[in-house]
């Protein structure tokens, strides 16, 4: 099949961003609607791709390859398997919703929307790329718009947060670039499928370093870059600041998609390229994951800022992704590994839904009250019952209530990881308990209790546009919670094809 | 006939003429007089050209052509220069060269 659906999905947002630059800045409404409609196009095409995708076929599908930079034999090579397919759907779904959520932005709308669309291209590119250099390029492209979104449209401490975000991520990227170059120089190709074939037996010595040393350097460079992005404890402290200070839609995308880039890097590059090293350090990774789960939950529990609490919940939830990946690294090829990876990928998707939903709902209430302090709310359930019910629903998805999506993935991860890492998994149950504690703490102080008199009359019910943003997320949460087979089957097959041979 | 007046005489004459012109251009205050000095210098050059042409290269018309070009340039220069001077006079009511120092750094 030689259609160019992926390229269309990938570059449509950029084209749309350029088109938006032509619209006069004063016509704010037109800019909003054009960017919203434009962001729907990739989503619809990705639905088409989802339907045409054959989960039972091994390898990459919808592949496209053009020579890009022949001198260093790097090519524009894109394609997807079941893992990237899920991530693509998540990205193209969340972007229109985030744009719809940012209709309340009224300053420099044009730049905002254009940056947002660029961001989408950057993220999608990472998921599509089958060439290391291309991967890196898109990796960095995604970074820049996010920086500006935080620094320009963020909260009070946005300068600190955005600088921390970009410096931290850049620090990781440096190593990534170095490692990619090292691989490129020693093997003579950046092409991922080709690399997989020749990688195992290839002698990779350079500058007098042995093959194993080169591999170890590249491994650690990859791991650190991705660990920062996920983020794995203790590389996580940029996250609460960035999430808290970013504008609502920025937080949605940041938590919903950007964090997944790191985990995706682990799945796409680290595990396949370094099975030996992964196995060697899988135990350490599992311990870090457990620490992330426990301390993420505890830190979230101690927050008094609603948005910051939700931000910390991301660390807690992404800890499960890493736990699954670690288990798979340790016992590659086994049923446990397969289930753990199913859980990890599904958890990535689910966390995308629930954290984006939570950030959005925090944003909704923030726009009305201009406060994020938990003690400034109180008893608003009586004032905004619809909002309250939606918040409880989304929070329960985040909590992992059985019947909603979060439970399925957490169950799978724990199922996969428990036989592999008994103690870390058992300890991570502490985190699972505190997940309940911080979610209930938030609900308790926001919705329940006596009505805060200051809010009387200032609080309007959630409006139709906002319901339209959250409704698709809620539908998916329920759908995956009740009948997860449609998505798990895609992931399951992809994981089997990609990792069973290791 | 012609042989009786040697080349050097022409050259001396032209040099004298040039010096008169030079003096006029450098020393006179009146801009028109400066312009006239320049015309004299140009004419001195013409004399030189013609003299050299007649004595050294008389078989062609090069010398005449050069002189014609110099005349044309001189005429053009005189026309532009006078126009400028008139224009300056109208604005500043003076034709004294020292007063016209707008280009002072």
């Amino acid at each position, binding site marked *: 099949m030689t259609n160019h659906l992926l390229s269309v999905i990938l570059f449509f947002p950029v084209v749309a961003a350029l088109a938006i630059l032509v619209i006069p800045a004063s016509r704010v409404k037109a800019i909003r609607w054009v960017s919203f409609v434009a962001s729907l196009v990739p989503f619809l095409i990705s639905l088409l791709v989802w339907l045409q995708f054959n989960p039972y076929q091994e390898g990459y599908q919808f592949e496209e390859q053009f020579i890009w930079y022949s001198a260093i034999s790097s090519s524009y090579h894109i394609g997807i398997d079941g893992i990237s397919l899920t991530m693509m759907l998540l990205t193209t779904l969340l972007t229109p919703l985030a744009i719809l959520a940012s209709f309340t932005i009224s300053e420099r709308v044009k730049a905002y929307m254009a940056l947002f669309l660029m961001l989408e291209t950057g993220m999608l590119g990472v998921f599509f790329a089958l060439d290391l250099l291309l991967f890196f390029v898109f990796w960095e492209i995604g970074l820049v718009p996010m920086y500006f979104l935080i620094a320009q449209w963020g909260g009070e401490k946005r300068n600190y947060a955005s600088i921390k975000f970009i410096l931290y991520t850049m620090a990781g990227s440096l190593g990534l670039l170095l490692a990619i170059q090292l691989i490129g120089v020693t093997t003579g190709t950046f092409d991922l499928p080709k690399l997989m074939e020749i990688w195992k037996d290839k002698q990779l010595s350079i500058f007098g370093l042995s093959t194993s040393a080169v591999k170890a350097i590249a491994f650690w460079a990859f791991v650190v870059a991705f660990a920062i992005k996920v983020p794995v404890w203790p590389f996580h402290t940029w996250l609460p600041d960035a999430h808290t200070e970013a504008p609502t839609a920025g937080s949605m995308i940041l938590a919903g998609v950007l964090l997944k880039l790191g985990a995706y890097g682990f799945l796409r590059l680290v595990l396949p390229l370094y099975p030996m090293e992964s196995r060697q350090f899988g135990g350490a990774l599992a311990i870090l994951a457990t620490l992330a789960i426990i301390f993420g939950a505890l830190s979230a*529990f*101690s927050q008094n800022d609603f948005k910051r609490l939700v931000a910390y919940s991301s660390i807690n939830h992404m800890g499960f992704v890493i736990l699954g990946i670690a288990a798979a690294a340790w016992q590659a090829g086994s049923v446990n590994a397969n289930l753990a990876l199913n859980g990890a990928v599904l958890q990535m998707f689910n966390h995308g839904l629930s954290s984006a939903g939570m950030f959005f709902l925090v944003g909704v209430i923030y726009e009305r009250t201009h406060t994020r302090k938990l003690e400034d709310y109180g008893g608003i359930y009586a004032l905004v019952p619809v909002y309250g019910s939606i918040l409880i629903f989304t929070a329960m998805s985040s909590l992992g209530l059985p019947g909603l999506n979060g439970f399925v993935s957490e169950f799978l991860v724990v199922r996969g990881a428990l036989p592999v890492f008994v103690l870390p998994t058992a300890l991570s149950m502490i985190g699972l308990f505190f997940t309940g504690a911080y979610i209930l703490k938030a609900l308790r102080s926001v919705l329940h209790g006596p009505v805060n008199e200051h809010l009387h009359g200032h609080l309007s019910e959630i409006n139709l546009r906002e319901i339209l943003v959250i409704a698709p997320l809620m539908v998916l949460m329920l759908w995956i919670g009740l009948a997860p087979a449609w998505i798990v089957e895609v992931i399951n097959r992809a994981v089997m094809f990609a990792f069973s041979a290791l | 006939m012609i042989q009786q007046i040697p080349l050097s005489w022409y050259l001396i004459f032209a040099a004298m003429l040039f010096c008169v012109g030079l003096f006029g251009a450098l020393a006179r205050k009146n801009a028109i007089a400066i312009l006239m000095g320049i015309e004299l210098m140009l004419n001195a050059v013409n004399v030189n050209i013609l003299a050299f042409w007649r004595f050294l290269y008389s078989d062609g018309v090069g010398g005449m052509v050069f002189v014609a070009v110099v005349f044309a340039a001189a005429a053009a220069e005189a026309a532009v220069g006078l126009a400028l001077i008139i224009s300056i006079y109208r604005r500043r009511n003076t034709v004294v060269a020292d007063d016209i120092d707008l280009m002072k750094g």
Partner: protein
Amino acid sequence: MSTEMLIWLIPLPPLLAFALIVLFTYKKHALSHWIAVSAAGLSWLGSMVVFFSAAGKEGLSHEPFRSFINWLPTQRNFLQIGVQIDPLSAVMVFFVAWTVLMIFIYSIGYHNYGQPKGTADHPGLPPHGAALKKHKETGGMVPSVEPMYARFFALISLFAFAMFTLVVSDNLLTLYIGWELMGFCSYFLIGFWYAKPSARDAAVKAFLTTRVGDVFMLLGLVLLYSQTGSLSYADTLANPVVIEELAKHSSGILGLSIAGLIGLLIFIGVIGKSAQFPLHVWLPDAMEGPTPVSAMIHAATMVSAGVYLAIRVFPLISAGWEPGHALTPTMVVLASIGAFTALFAATIALAQNDIKRVLAYSTISQLGYMIAALGIGAYVAATFHLVMHAFFKALLFLGSGSVIHGVEHGVYHTGEHVDPQNMFNMGGLRKKMPVTFWTFLLGGLALSGFPLVTAGFWSKDEILSYAFKGDYFIVFVVLAVAALLTAFYTARQITLTFLGEARTKASSHAVESVKVMIIPLIILAVFAVTAGWSGIPQGFPLFGGILPNWFEEFVGSMVKESAPHGAGESGSLVPLLTSLVVSLGGLALGWWVYKDVRAGMNDPLERVLGRFYPLIKNKYYIDEFYQAAFIKPAIWIADKVAYQFLDKFLIDGFLHAVAKGTWRLGVIFRNFFDIPVVNGTGDAIGKGTQGLGDVLRKMQTGKIQQYMILSLLVVILVGVLFYLYFLLGRV
């Protein structure tokens, strides 16, 4: 329609009702309760059909009604979910359907359907009553309708869905889903009046306390799943080969076999859900919910789910145990926690004055009974007591709701500000609320095990005789003492509430509840008496054999039976006499102590128990202990260690140090290299050019003749130079 298909349909009507009410009819009272009640009715109908076809099927325990589908792909297999009715779930579905339907009907009256809207009512708070014009002169009021009426029916519908799902599922995963969903609903219902801080806190407490158990239970499920590759009852619990295999291998933890470990982990979930010590603290606080109904859910339905699960995983718990031999470690844990809880909660119940709290502690105590029974291997007796208890405890809770309602009416009428739930504010209600009194009396007698006529007698007697026969002497004594206390506090409750004279004006103006509330009471009262007749042991003196011991045969087929059963047969009358003595003695004692309590008097027990009284009055200070030992430290660790120390101080501190170090390095570079060297050079070039310009500009006078002189001089100079050059060059 096949029975299997019907089983799938049982849980669905309440779910549909929930969706309908939430999405469409949330503003309409009558429509909402009609939807909810008819949904419960449909489920009830389906349950009855299923129950009777199950009861009529031979060999049901070996070939249960079962149907399943693929749910979750796992590499090359699927995790399957489905429904199943075997004898155990059949009796579960029977009592769940009945009690749920009764609650639904009762709730209509309890939430004052048809009463006027409250004068000062506000969503999130209980109704405060409405002023009526004709009562204006007395300042009297009448009860007002619940402001969140439809919402209540939506939530209990979801609750019913969860309970039915749990009961009919054929695997532990959907059971867990129903289990957690019920926890969520109970969180919602306990915090139904969410604007009340006490209700809000009780809701959080209930959810988190049960969650402690739930995370262990999840571990247990996952362990079972990873060991056997399945979670369905048929492949794991009901498969002796699998159980044997699991029992053989040691888990390496506490000397337990793998089966025992899984059983223990799942049992910790049961401890949370069924409010066993030490996770019992949430249940009494759960009485903050709408009085009788949510309390009743927490007494008759949800907490029963915990015991149901324990019975369900009994094969794991007892793996490797042969009747008559030493108990497995996990069974010992069950027996000791159950027996301890039975006694411990009964003592607390002695000193509670809130009519619902007494019942709450009595529930904990009775559940302990069942767990203890299971711990010593009395599978059938535990199940029997579970079912009987569900009926009479539902009756008692609904009855207490009716009492509170009646007294509340008096409070509205007289304007007297007394707590309508405190039993010392009641008295003499026998005449005011005759139906409530008689049904409550029957329920109370069943709870205390009044001989022969009540259901509670048969089930308790069976447990006691089993304990005695099996030589579990400590369990026997503890349970007997607990039964004595139970009879005592039940008599105390009935005496204080219904007998004697009214101790407050409100109590003397109480009125009988509406029909829609008392009809469920009557129906449940019938069950509280007759249900016990389904399980009379064959060898019981005088009565044995008149009715077949149907329950024993039906549910007993689930386990390979079991030596010391049918206590009466071998002739020892000790357990029988014990149950007679404790129940009648406790009742008589309770009545005798409390029959003369007058308004304003202290509890007579206070004098008798002395320093022990404050201890049980304050529930052994366990809440305070947890607060100090777990909650405060957890908050402290979360804030100070995890956030302030690790994140803010250590990690961010390190980052900031790096940032600062880099900054310093930058400053050094700037001051000692950038500024002097790089900037210096650049600036020098600029400055020099400027200086030169300053010098040269003086030549530019603007005077044309000076320029000409200058150029003449240059020409001369150049000419001279040329001349000299050629001159010298030639030389």
